[in-house]
């Protein structure tokens, strides 16, 4: 256990170290600019000459100016501490001051995205299970649904999302539901694929056994196929929930970007607020980790209750 923690921490430290290191060449142009304005000696002396140089070359020629690469207002690459500080200022600090549901709060934007994610995940999972049950029980569905399901995933969601938003808007649906539908569109697929495999997991012998009991198809589904598919379902749900989150974020981009983590990323890029983009990005990653972790927890509980060997 200790060894594991140690190796994980080593990797994390290496990533953070690399990140800090990258900040220097990435932000060097701005740093030399600021230093020159403050009256310091810079090589080469003119801005147009510096523009000819890459970040690394500039960093090599001005080693004394490295500290200026950190703590800028609009860095090309914000440093980890800036991102963490922004994350804290827009989450924890806002909760503490009772402003967690204001427009500057990532808790507010995260909740907007999360609600669309969860609703879409429920839609998508339900649709996926229903389709899988149909595919397993009907040869016609097996032949006809699967190719469409696969084709649906080959269309870039970025191209499709605005159309879904526009079409739904014209029938008066906006806000949560269109985003949830985009989420569902991405998350039903892994569930279909996993559940078809899971529902077909019982072998000939177990199906024959149900036949000797003269069990109906419904009973075979309920008592044999569904329980047998549980491990497959959970594996699919983990992929499905992260796909849902991506769907919700993508769904927020073409709506004019008012609310949600996707909106934060988009406004950040409009106004060159890299720190805001990065903190929204990290908020989304943390949210995804929490969601996948929650499903893992439910999986462990459920499979244990079902007597699956630990």
């Amino acid at each position, binding site marked *: 256990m200790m060894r594991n923690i140690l190796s994980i921490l080593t990797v994390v430290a290496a990533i953070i170290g690399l990140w800090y290191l990258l900040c220097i060449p990435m932000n060097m142009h701005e740093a030399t600019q600021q230093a020159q304005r403050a009256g310091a000696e810079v090589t080469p002396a003119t801005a147009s000459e510096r523009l000819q140089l890459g970040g690394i070359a500039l960093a090599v020629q001005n080693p004394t100016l490295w500290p200026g690469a950190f703590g800028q207002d609009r860095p090309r690459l914000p440093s980890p501490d800036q991102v963490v500080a922004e994350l804290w200022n827009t989450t924890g600090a806002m909760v503490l001051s009772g402003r967690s549901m204001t427009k500057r709060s990532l808790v507010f934007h995260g909740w907007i995205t999360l609600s669309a994610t969860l609703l879409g995940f429920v839609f998508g999972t339900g649709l996926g299970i229903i389709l899988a049950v149909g595919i397993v029980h009907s040869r016609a569905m097996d032949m006809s649904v699967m190719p469409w399901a696969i084709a649906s995933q080959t269309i870039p969601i970025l191209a499709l999302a605005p159309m879904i938003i526009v079409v739904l808007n014209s029938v008066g649906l906006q806000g949560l539901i269109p985003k949830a539908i985009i989420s569902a569109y991405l998350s039903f697929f892994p569930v279909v694929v996993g559940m078809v495999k899971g529902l077909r997991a019982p072998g000939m*012998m*177990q199906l*024959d*056994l*149900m*036949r*000797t*009991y*003269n*069990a109906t198809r419904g*009973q075979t589904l309920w*008592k*044999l196929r569904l*329980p*047998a598919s*549980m491990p497959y379902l959970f594996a699919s749900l983990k992929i499905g929930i992260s796909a849902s989150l991506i769907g919700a974020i993508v769904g927020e981009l073409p709506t004019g970007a008012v609310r949600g983590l996707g909106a934060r990323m988009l406004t950040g890029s409009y106004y060159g607020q890299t720190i805001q983009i990065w903190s929204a990005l990290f908020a989304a990653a943390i949210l995804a980790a929490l969601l996948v972790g929650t499903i893992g927890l439910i999986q462990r509980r459920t499979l244990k209750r*079902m*007597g*699956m*060997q630990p």
Partner: protein
Amino acid sequence: MNDKTPVIQAKNLDLTFQTNDGPIHALKDVSLDIMKGDFVSFIGPSGCGKTTFLRVIAALEEPTGGSVTVNGMTPDEARRARAYGYVFQAAGLYPWRTIEGNIRLPLEIMDFSKSEMRERIDRVLQLVDLEGFGKKFPWQLSGGMQQRASIARALAFDADILLMDEPFGALDEIVRDHLNEQLLRLWDKTHKTIGFVTHSIPEAVYLSTRIVVMSPRPGRITDVIENTLPRDRPLDIRDTPEFLEIAHRVREGLRAGHAYED
């Protein structure tokens, strides 16, 4: 002992599987009557159709010719009437159900009442000597115990006929002896009609009232041997001359059917 009414009647049964390599005669002209209370073993090398015959009786395969009746019905009607319990080579217990839960499975499907289920589960657990293991999950039991649980599952809904397809084939000999002894006692207590597929000569002779010797290509019956041993059979009956004599006849029957040739 037996009241000599046929429970299972097969007449000129044929079954040909169409495969990519041409037709395979799994059963050819198989005729056999199994009487009520009989313990009939089917023995023969692999490919002789013994399992296929059992599956035809259970309506898991459709014969291509001839006729078969179970309790006077077609096999499929008998299956719908839940006339038989079937025990497969592997225990095939559901890993997500406890032993009790597995035995309850057919009872749930057949809509027994809660109290009836409870009573039947307790009874069959006792019958196969698994009292106290009802709450365990299958993986917590040994292979022999799992197979006993699967027999209990087949007994739970009280069908008169028990069809067993090499139920002890995957177990070691010591466990197998023990289960054979238990199965005989169980048969004696329940008066069921049992069809039992095996490829072990001692097992067939020890258990059965009749031994059906089969041979392959095409699958057919080459001999039916009446077992003259008394019904009460301790394990060491297998060392008596009478036992060895019957075993010898079975072996002769297998040889006559070219079972030992390639």
